């Protein structure tokens, strides 16, 4: 059985369905109507130990709600979820010991206390042995530069400092599974780098990660698997490479050629591709499907025509795929989930 297992996980909310204004409120008194919102709709998820999964989707897709279901904060309306064999909602205490959680938009620091005290309180709650605690803090300090913020009261921390502290809080007890909800939101690039480095180290330790984020840099840097969710449903579940290979197959090769080459001649060489001329003489772009042509083939086709001065190849970014999914341009068929 996988470390994190969700089967047909569903969460519905009842929202009062009433017109705006006082009349609406009064009417609602008499005729109570509710709409049912399916925030999470029959989600199946299976995460093995050591994996790093990116959980992606537009705002309101159900990402945070899924995390809350997986961590036991919210009770599922139907379906089941098990983390290391335990139901996180019903076996709250046992589950809590093996997970770490970070909500990027909220802090778990005690507002009026210095960071050091918050960490000490958590140490007590989690029963972390003193030596382990010190050792971990030292490790965290190396990447997150904790020492400089330890004596600072939480209220006075900047966003970047707060996030670093919250990361330490989430991991002070060495959990097996870590859920991160928007861990880099609002951070500047320097802090983002630190956070990503921290996550890489976690992965190296074998910690299982689940990450929701809008920052695609986080995904490319940290995760090897991506699950895309929209309107509460999983619409894609596979490795990053698979996503790119399946849905981001377009490559662009930018060529700078010496000599006189006419566009139609070049284009005739690659009937399967789209060839465009660049603004300057000798500049051409070949847009092709990776499955149909390789870069080698393109170069082999060009060299007899003219000397290749420069070559530049555009790699597909996950961004392009996600953007298309968000815009509804791409209806993905779920890849078979590895089980």
């Amino acid at each position: 059985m996988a470390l994190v297992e969700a089967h047909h996980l569903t969460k519905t909310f009842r929202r009062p369905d009433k017109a705006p204004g006082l009349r609406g409120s009064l009417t609602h008194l008499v005729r109570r109507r509710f709409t049912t919102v399916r925030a999470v709709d029959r989600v199946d998820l299976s995460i093995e130990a050591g994996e790093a999964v990116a959980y992606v989707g537009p705002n309101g897709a159900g990402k945070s709600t899924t995390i809350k279901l997986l961590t036991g904060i919210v009770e599922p309306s139907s379906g089941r979820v098990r983390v290391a064999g335990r139901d996180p909602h019903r076996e709250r205490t046992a589950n809590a010991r093996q997970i770490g959680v970070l909500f990027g938009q909220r802090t778990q620091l005690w507002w009026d206390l210095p960071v050091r005290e918050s960490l000490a309180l958590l140490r007590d709650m989690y029963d972390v042995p003193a030596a382990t605690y010190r050792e971990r803090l030292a490790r965290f300090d190396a990447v997150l530069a904790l020492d400089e913020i330890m004596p600072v009261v939480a209220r006075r921390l900047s966003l970047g400092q707060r996030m670093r502290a919250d990361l330490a809080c989430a991991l002070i007890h060495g959990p097996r599974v870590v859920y991160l909800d928007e861990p880099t939101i609002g951070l500047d690039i320097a802090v983002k780098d630190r956070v990503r480095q921290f996550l890489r180290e976690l992965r190296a330790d074998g910690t299982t990660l689940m990450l929701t984020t809008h920052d695609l840099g986080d995904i490319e840097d940290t995760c090897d698997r991506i699950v895309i969710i929209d309107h509460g449903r999983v619409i894609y579940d596979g490795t990053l490479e698979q996503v790119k290979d399946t849905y981001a197959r377009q490559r662009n090769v930018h060529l700078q050629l010496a000599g006189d080459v006419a566009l139609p001649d070049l284009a005739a060489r690659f009937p399967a591709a789209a060839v465009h001329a660049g603004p300057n003489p000798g500049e051409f772009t070949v847009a092709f499907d990776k499955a149909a042509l390789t870069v080698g083939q393109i170069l082999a086709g060009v060299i007899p025509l003219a000397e290749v001065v420069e070559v530049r190849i555009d790699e597909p970014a996950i961004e392009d795929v996600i953007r298309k999914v968000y815009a509804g341009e791409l209806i993905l068929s779920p890849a078979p989930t590895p089980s």
Partner: protein
Amino acid sequence: MRLVRVYRRSLGAHLRAVLEYQSDFWLLVTAGIVTQSLGFIFLSAVFARVPTLNGWRFEETVLIYALAGLAQAAVPLFADGAWLLGSLVHTGELDYRLVRPYPPVLQVTSHQIGFSGAGDAVGAGVLLVWALSRVEVHWTPVKVLLGLLILLGAVVIRIAITVATNAIAFWIPSPNPMFASAVFQIGELARYPLTIYGFGLRVVLTGLLPFAFTGFLPAAWLLDEGGAAWLGLATPVVAVLCALAAYAVFQRGLRRYESAGH
């Protein structure tokens, strides 16, 4: 026990944080003392006009008032965080507390410390000493031990009622503890001889919201007065029941918890 140790550390951390605001501390302590004194003034004004209240003398009535006040003082001192439950639920701040291996209800109650409780304790304590010196109690070592046990029971009952009434926030979302405040105010009524109230009110204050066990019944037992004196002895049992009920309400509420947006 680890449970207690962590609780103490949590309260202690807040204590230190709040002591930073010195004016805050003295303001609240004074407030507590003033509140208790006002009750005493009210009683003396009433008893200046009448010799007894349903057979209860001035000093005996003050005894009831002081016992209830002492029990009440424990709530802000040890479980003040309960009043913030509505706000925590409303903003979704409860989330983090649900993923730590420590009972969420205890995390909530230890979230804040209210120094008015110290003032309440001082004020009520003074009144208690004053009253005890003027009433007839047949003191024995057993009586002292039982008395302390009953006082502890009264404290637990008050905390349990505070937690349970604040837990209504899980069902009726509101950032303000209006219902809990109202019940708290009702509890103030139980600081007087219950015999003055009609049967209905007496049943409510004994069976439904057992405030009677936080002042009147313990006092009645102490003074061996009235037919219901033996009920005072049941206070510790009622306390256990109240604690269990409050815990159950809170747990049931957690199942309904929907968190908040992001």
